C-alpha cells in the first residue's frame, strides 16, 4: 500500500511544481492538480478499504527515523482513514466543481487549494501537538487565500476578518501548547494524555487554552461572526470546502485532543455545543441570504456535533456511530447545497424559485434538506434516533429536549427555503447554466448520502428489518417518470395491489382494517388519476412514498420501523401537499407540525425505551417510568396528523389547495395514520393519568371541541374544498372522542367512523374536485344550479352529505348511533353535549354544500359546463356501492371491527341478531331503516318531480336593485355568507385564536432572533472581542474559582 506520508509528498510536490507552469498551460496545471487530489483520495481510500475489510492494524509513521516523542509521528487508523477519505473526496469534488475558477485565476489558486487539503490531511494524522498547530495554520492561511477567489471588496474584507480572527485563535493555541510543553515536557499527544495535566496547577489552564482554541476554530456561537461573513462572501465552491472538509477536520482534531482534557472537558464541550446549536439555528431564522443561511446551518450542525461529543459519557460506545452519522450527513448535504448555490447563483433564498426550472435539481436539493433535518433513509436519521434513545436511557431529558428544539428550529428555515424553491412566487425565474463539472459533485454527494444511509442502516441491528422494497419501487417510478400518466398510474395501482396481495395473509385486527383503508383506498383514489393528461411529472414517486410510509406503519413491529415509516410518510405527503396551488405556506406549516410531532413521538419512544433492551413496540406496554408523559408526547405527536384543535392550522389550506385527487388522499387516508398511531398507543399503554387526572378525559374534551370547532368553521366557509377540509377536522374529533371513551362501543364508533370518513371524504373531495375542475372556482357562491349539468356528481355529493350528517339511512348514522350509545354508557355528559352540538352544526354545512353548488340558478358562464370526467366518477361510484352495502347490511362493516376490538374491550359489545344491532340503550336495524327511508324518499321525490311542472324559471340576480349596482355583485348573491345570522351569534367561537397564537409565537421567536443577531456588527474588532470574551467566560465557567475543569 502507498504510505500516508506520500499524501504530504504528492501535495507539496504538486504545489511547488505548479510554479513552473504559466497561464497558457492552465488546463494542464489543472489536470496536474486534479491528479494530485485524486491520488490523495486514492491513498486514503485504500487505507480505509484495508481497515474495513482486511483487519489492517493502526500504524504509526515516524518521521526523521526517530520514535516519538523525539520526532513528529503520524498515525493512520480506521478513524483517520474515514475522515481522510471523506475530506479528500470532498476536495476532489470541490476541485472539479471549481474547474472554471481555478483555471481562470491561475496556478496560485491551485497551489493554495492543494495545500489546504494537505494541511487538513496532516492535521488529522499528526500526533504532535505543535505540528498540529503548524498545519492548522496552513489550513487557515490557505482558506484565507481561497476566500478572496474573486477579489471583490466583500470577499477581501471577509478574508481580512478571517485572518485576524484565526490569527488570534492560533496565538492562543500557541500559548496553550507552549504551556503544555512546560508542564508535560513533551509535545507528543500520547505522552501528554498519560500525564493527566488537568490535575496540575496551571496545567489545567494550559489544557483549557488548547481546548478552547480548537473549539474556536470550529466557530462556536456567538464567537463566530467572522465565519458567517466568510460563508456569505466566499464563492460557494469555497463555502462547501470550509463547511464540509475543514469542519470535519476540526471535529477530528477536537476528538484527538479530548483525551488530554479527560472527563471534565465533556461538560464544557457539551455546553458550548448546545449553545451553538440553539443559538445558530435561532439566528438562522431571520436570514434571507442563501449562503449565509447555509453558514448558520453549518455552524448549527457543528454545534450538534459538539453536543454529541460532550455527551460521550452518556452515549458510550454509540458516540462514534451517532457523531459520524451526523457529520457525514452534514458534510455531504452542506457541500451539495453550497454547490447548488453556485449553480443557482441567487443571493436571496427567494430567488431559489429558479431551481424549479429543472426538477432534477429540486430532487437533489430535497435530498440535502431532508438529510440535514434527519429524515430517513439518511445516516442522520439513524444517528438522531440512536442519540435520542441513548439520552433517554441515561435520563438526560433536558439535553434531549434541547437537541430536539434545536433540530426543529433548523427545520423551520430549511423547509421555508425549500418551500421558496418549490413554490415561491417569483414571476421571473432567472436562467442558470448547468455545467457538467458543477453538477457532477452535487450528484455524487447526493448518491453518497443514499448509499451511506443504506450502509448505516445495516450497521445497526435494528434496521435489519426496515423494508426497502417500497423505496426501490419509488426509485423505479422516478426512473420512468418520462412515461405518460396512464402507464405510470397503472403501474402504481398494480404496485399497491401486489403489495396488498403479498402482505394480506399476515394482517389481522386493526392492522388489516387500516391496511385496507390505506391500500384499497389508495387504489380507488388513484383511479381518478386516469383523468389526468400528459406526464404529471414527479407525482407518482411522491404518492408511492406516502403509501410506502403508510404501509410501513402497519407493518412496523419496532419503534424504529414505526418512526422510519412515519417520516417516510411525512416526506411523501409534504410533497403532495406542496404540489397544490398557493400551497407554499400551508406545506410549510404542515411540515413544521409534522416535524414537531415527529420529535415528540421520537422523544416518547426514547423515554419508553428506558430500562428496556428491546425496541419492539411492545415496550410501550410496560414502560418503566414517565408513563403519562410518554403517553402525552406520543398522543400529541399523533394528533398533529389527525389535526386536533390547536394543531390543526396546517390542514385547511393544505387540503383545500391540493390537486383534486390529492385532496382525498391527504384527507381521507393520511389523517388515518394519526388515528392508527393513537390506536396502537392506547392499546399498548392503556389507561393513563397524571395523579388523579385522567388523560383520556382530556382527550375526550379535545375530541369534542375539535368536532364543534371543525364543524363550525366548515359552516362559515365560502370555499367548497376548505369546507370539506374543516369537516375532516370535525369528523376526526368524533373519532378521537370515541377512542378516548376506551370502551367497546366507543372504539367501534371511532373505527367505523374512520372507515366511513374515508369513504365519504373520498367521495366528496372527488366530486367537488370534479366540480372545481369544470367551473374553475372553489367559491360556492360563484356556483349554483349545477344539478342539471353534473347530475352524477350531484348524486355522489348528496349521498356523501347524508353520510356526513349521520342521518339515516346511510352508514354515517350507524357510526353516530353507536357513538351516542357509547357516551351514554360512559357517562361523560359534558363533552358528549358538545359532540351532539357538533352533529347539529354538521347539518348546516351539509346543506350548504348541496344547496349552493347544485341548486338554485345556473350561472351564465356555466352554461357550457360538462359532467365530471368518467375517471373521476368511477371511484365515486365504487365507493357509493360500498356505502350502500355497509348501510344496508351494517354488520358487514361493524362485525369485523367489533371482532378486532373484542380482544381488548370485550364488555358492552353490540349484540347482533341478523341485521339487528342491540345495545344496552336500544336497537337499530340498518336494513329496515334503509327500506323505510328509501320508501319515504321515493314518495317525496315522486311528488316533487310531479310538482316541478309548475316551477317558474327566473333570471339570475333577479332580485332588483334600488338605483345602484353594488360594487361586488357576488356579495348580494343569496349563497354568499349564507349563515350570517349564525355567524353573528357564534362567530366569536371561530375567530382565529389558534392561528393568531401560533403566529405570535413565530413572530416572537423571529423578533428575538433579529435582536440577537445584531451582535454580528460586521466589525473584525467586535469579532475578536467576542473570541476573547468567549474564552474568558468559559474560563470562568470551567474553573469557577477552583482548580480542575
Amino acid at each position, binding site marked *: 500500500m502507498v504510505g500516508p506520508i506520500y499524501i504530504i509528498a504528492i501535495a507539496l510536490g504538486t504545489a511547488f511544481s505548479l510554479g513552473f507552469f504559466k497561464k497558457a498551460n492552465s488546463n494542464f496545471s489543472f489536470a496536474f492538480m486534479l491528479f494530485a487530489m485524486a491520488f490523495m483520495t486514492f491513498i486514503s481510500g485504500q487505507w480505509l478499504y484495508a481497515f474495513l475489510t482486511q483487519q489492517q492494524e493502526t500504524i504509526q509513521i515516524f518521521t526523521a527515523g526517530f520514535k516519538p516523542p523525539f520526532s513528529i509521528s503520524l498515525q493512520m487508523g480506521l478513524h483517520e482513514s474515514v475522515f481522510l477519505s471523506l475530506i479528500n473526496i470532498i476536495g476532489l469534488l470541490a476541485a472539479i466543481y471549481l474547474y472554471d475558477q481555478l483555471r481562470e485565476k491561475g496556478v496560485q489558486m491551485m497551489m493554495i487549494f492543494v495545500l489546504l487539503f494537505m494541511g487538513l490531511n496532516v492535521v488529522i494524522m499528526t500526533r504532535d501537538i505543535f505540528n498540529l498547530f503548524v498545519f492548522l495554520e496552513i489550513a487557515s492561511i490557505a482558506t484565507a487565500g481561497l476566500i478572496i477567489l474573486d477579489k471583490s471588496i466583500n470577499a477581501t474584507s471577509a478574508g481580512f476578518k478571517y485572518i485576524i480572527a484565526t490569527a488570534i485563535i492560533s496565538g492562543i493555541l500557541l500559548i496553550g501548547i507552549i504551556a503544555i510543553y512546560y508542564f508535560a515536557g513533551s509535545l507528543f499527544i500520547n505522552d501528554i494524555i498519560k500525564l493527566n495535566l488537568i490535575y496540575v496547577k496551571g496545567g489545567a489552564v494550559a489544557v483549557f487554552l488548547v481546548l478552547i482554541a480548537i473549539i474556536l476554530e470550529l466557530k462556536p456561537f456567538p464567537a463566530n461572526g467572522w465565519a458567517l461573513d466568510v460563508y456569505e462572501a466566499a464563492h460557494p465552491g469555497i463555502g462547501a470546502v470550509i463547511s464540509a472538509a475543514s469542519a470535519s477536520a476540526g471535529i477530528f482534531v477536537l476528538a484527538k485532543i479530548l483525551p488530554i482534557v479527560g472527563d471534565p472537558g465533556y461538560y464544557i464541550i457539551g455546553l458550548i455545543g448546545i449553545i451553538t446549536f440553539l443559538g445558530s439555528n435561532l439566528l438562522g431564522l431571520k436570514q434571507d441570504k442563501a449562503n449565509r443561511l447555509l453558514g448558520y446551518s453549518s455552524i448549527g450542525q457543528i454545534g450538534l456535533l459538539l453536543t454529541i461529543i460532550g455527551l460521550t459519557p452518556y452515549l458510550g460506545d454509540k458516540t462514534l456511530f451517532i457523531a459520524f452519522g451526523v457529520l457525514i450527513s452534514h458534510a455531504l448535504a452542506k457541500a451539495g447545497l453550497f454547490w447548488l448555490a453556485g449553480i443557482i447563483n441567487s443571493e436571496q433564498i427567494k430567488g431559489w424559485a429558479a431551481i424549479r426550472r429543472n426538477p432534477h435539481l429540486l430532487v437533489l436539493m430535497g435530498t440535502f434538506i431532508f438529510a440535514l433535518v434527519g429524515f430517513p433513509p439518511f445516516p442522520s436519521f439513524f444517528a438522531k434516533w440512536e442519540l435520542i434513545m441513548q439520552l433517554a436511557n441515561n435520563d438526560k431529558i433536558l439535553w434531549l429536549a434541547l437537541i430536539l428544539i434545536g433540530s426543529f428550529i433548523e427545520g423551520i428555515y430549511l423547509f421555508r427555503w425549500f418551500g421558496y424553491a418549490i413554490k415561491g412566487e417569483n414571476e421571473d425565474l432567472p436562467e442558470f447554466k448547468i455545467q457538467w463539472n458543477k453538477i457532477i459533485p452535487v450528484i455524487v454527494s447526493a448518491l453518497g448520502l443514499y448509499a451511506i444511509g443504506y450502509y448505516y442502516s445495516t450497521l445497526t441491528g435494528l434496521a435489519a428489518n426496515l423494508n426497502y422494497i417500497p423505496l426501490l419501487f419509488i426509485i423505479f417510478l422516478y426512473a420512468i417518470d418520462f412515461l405518460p400518466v396512464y402507464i405510470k398510474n397503472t403501474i402504481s395501482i398494480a404496485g399497491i395491489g401486489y403489495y396488498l396481495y403479498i402482505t394480506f395473509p399476515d394482517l389481522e385486527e386493526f392492522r388489516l382494517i387500516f391496511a385496507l383503508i390505506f391500500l384499497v383506498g389508495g387504489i380507488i383514489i388513484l383511479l381518478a388519476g386516469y383523468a389526468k393528461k400528459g406526464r404529471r411529472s414527479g407525482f407518482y414517486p411522491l404518492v408511492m412514498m406516502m403509501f410506502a410510509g403508510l404501509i410501513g406503519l402497519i407493518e412496523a413491529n419496532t419503534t424504529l420501523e414505526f418512526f422510519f415509516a412515519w417520516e417516510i410518510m411525512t416526506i411523501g405527503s409534504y410533497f403532495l401537499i406542496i404540489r397544490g396551488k398557493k400551497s407554499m405556506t400551508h406545506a410549510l406549516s404542515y411540515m413544521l407540525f409534522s416535524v414537531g410531532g415527529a420529535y415528540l413521538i421520537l422523544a416518547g419512544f426514547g423515554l419508553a425505551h428506558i430500562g428496556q433492551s428491546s425496541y419492539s413496540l411492545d415496550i410501550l406496554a410496560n414502560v418503566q417510568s414517565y408513563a403519562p408523559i410518554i403517553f402525552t408526547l406520543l398522543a400529541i405527536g399523533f394528533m398533529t396528523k389527525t389535526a386536533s384543535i390547536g394543531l390543526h392550522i396546517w390542514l385547511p389550506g393544505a387540503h383545500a389547495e391540493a390537486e383534486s385527487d390529492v385532496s382525498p388522499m391527504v384527507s381521507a387516508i393520511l389523517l388515518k395514520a394519526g388515528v392508527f398511531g393513537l390506536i396502537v398507543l392506547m392499546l399498548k399503554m392503556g389507561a393513563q393519568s397524571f395523579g388523579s387526572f385522567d388523560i383520556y378525559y382530556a382527550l375526550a374534551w379535545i375530541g369534542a371541541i375539535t368536532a364543534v370547532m371543525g364543524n363550525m368553521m366548515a359552516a362559515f366557509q365560502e370555499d367548497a374544498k376548505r369546507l370539506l377540509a374543516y369537516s375532516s377536522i370535525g369528523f376526526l374529533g368524533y373519532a378521537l372522542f370515541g377512542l378516548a371513551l376506551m370502551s367497546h362501543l366507543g372504539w367501534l364508533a371511532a373505527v367505523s367512523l374512520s372507515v366511513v370518513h374515508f369513504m365519504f371524504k373520498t367521495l366528496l373531495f372527488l366530486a367537488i374536485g370534479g366540480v372545481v375542475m369544470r367551473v374553475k372556482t372553489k367559491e360556492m357562491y360563484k356556483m349554483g344550479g349545477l344539478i342539471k349539468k353534473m347530475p352524477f356528481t350531484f348524486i355522489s355529493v348528496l349521498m356523501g352529505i347524508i353520510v356526513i350528517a349521520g342521518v339515516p339511512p346511510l352508514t354515517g348514522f350507524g357510526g353516530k348511533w353507536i357513538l351516542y350509545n357509547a357516551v351514554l354508557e360512559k357517562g361523560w355528559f359534558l363533552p358528549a353535549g358538545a359532540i351532539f352540538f357538533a352533529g347539529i352544526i354538521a347539518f348546516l354545512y351539509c346543506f350548504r354544500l348541496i344547496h349552493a353548488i347544485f341548486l338554485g340558478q345556473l350561472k351564465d358562464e356555466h352554461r357550457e359546463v360538462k359532467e365530471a370526467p368518467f375517471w373521476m366518477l368511477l371511484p365515486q361510484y365504487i365507493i357509493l356501492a360500498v356505502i350502500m352495502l355497509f348501510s344496508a347490511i351494517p354488520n358487514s362493516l361493524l362485525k369485523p371491527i367489533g371482532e378486532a376490538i373484542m380482544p381488548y374491550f370485550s364488555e358492552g359489545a353490540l349484540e347482533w341478531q341478523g341485521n339487528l344491532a342491540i345495545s344496552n340503550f336500544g336497537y337499530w336495524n340498518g336494513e329496515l331503516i334503509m327500506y323505510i327511508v328509501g320508501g319515504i324518499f321515493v314518495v317525496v321525490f315522486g311528488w316533487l318531480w310531479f310538482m316541478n311542472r309548475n316551477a317558474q324559471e327566473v333570471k339570475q340576480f333577479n332580485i332588483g336593485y334600488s338605483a345602484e349596482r353594488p360594487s361586488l355583485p357576488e356579495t348580494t348573491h343569496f349563497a354568499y355568507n349564507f349563515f350570517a345570522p349564525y355567524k353573528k351569534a357564534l362567530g366569536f367561537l371561530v375567530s382565529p385564536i389558534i392561528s393568531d397564537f401560533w403566529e405570535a409565537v413565530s413572530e416572537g421567536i423571529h423578533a428575538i432572533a433579529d435582536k440577537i443577531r445584531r451582535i454580528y456588527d460586521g*466589525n473584525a474588532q467586535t469579532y475578536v472581542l467576542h473570541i476573547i470574551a468567549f474564552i474568558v467566560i468559559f474560563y470562568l465557567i470551567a474553573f469557577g474559582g477552583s482548580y480542575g475543569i
Partner: protein
Amino acid sequence: MENLNLEIITLITGIILVLIGIWGLLTQKNLIKIVIGFTLFNTGIHIIMVSIGYVKNRTAPIIDQSVNINDVGNSVVDPVPQALVLTAIVIGLGVTALMLTYVLKMYQKRKSLEINNYNDLKW
C-alpha cells in the same frame, strides 16, 4: 529579589506585551494599527515561549568550545522552545504580510483605512 529571575521578568514582559497587542488590535480604528497590534501580540507570545525554555545560568544550545561535550545535558538551555519559536516567527511574518496585503487591497477598493468602513457583511 531572590524570586526575581531573568525568565520571570521576560515572561511578564511577554504577557503584558500580549495584552497590549490585543488592546491595540481591539481599540485602534486604523487597519494598519490593528496589524501592528497583532505583531505585538505575536512578539509577546514569542517572548513567553523563549522564557519557558530558559534554564538558569546555562548557555545557548550550541555545542562549541564553551560547552563540555560530555556534559551537554547540564550546560545548555532547552532547544525545543527555541525551535518552536523559530517556526512561529516565520509563520507570524507570513500572516502579517497577508494581513497587510488584504489591507492594501481593501484600501485600493474603498480608499479608506477606517475599519468601520468595512462592515457591509453583517447579521
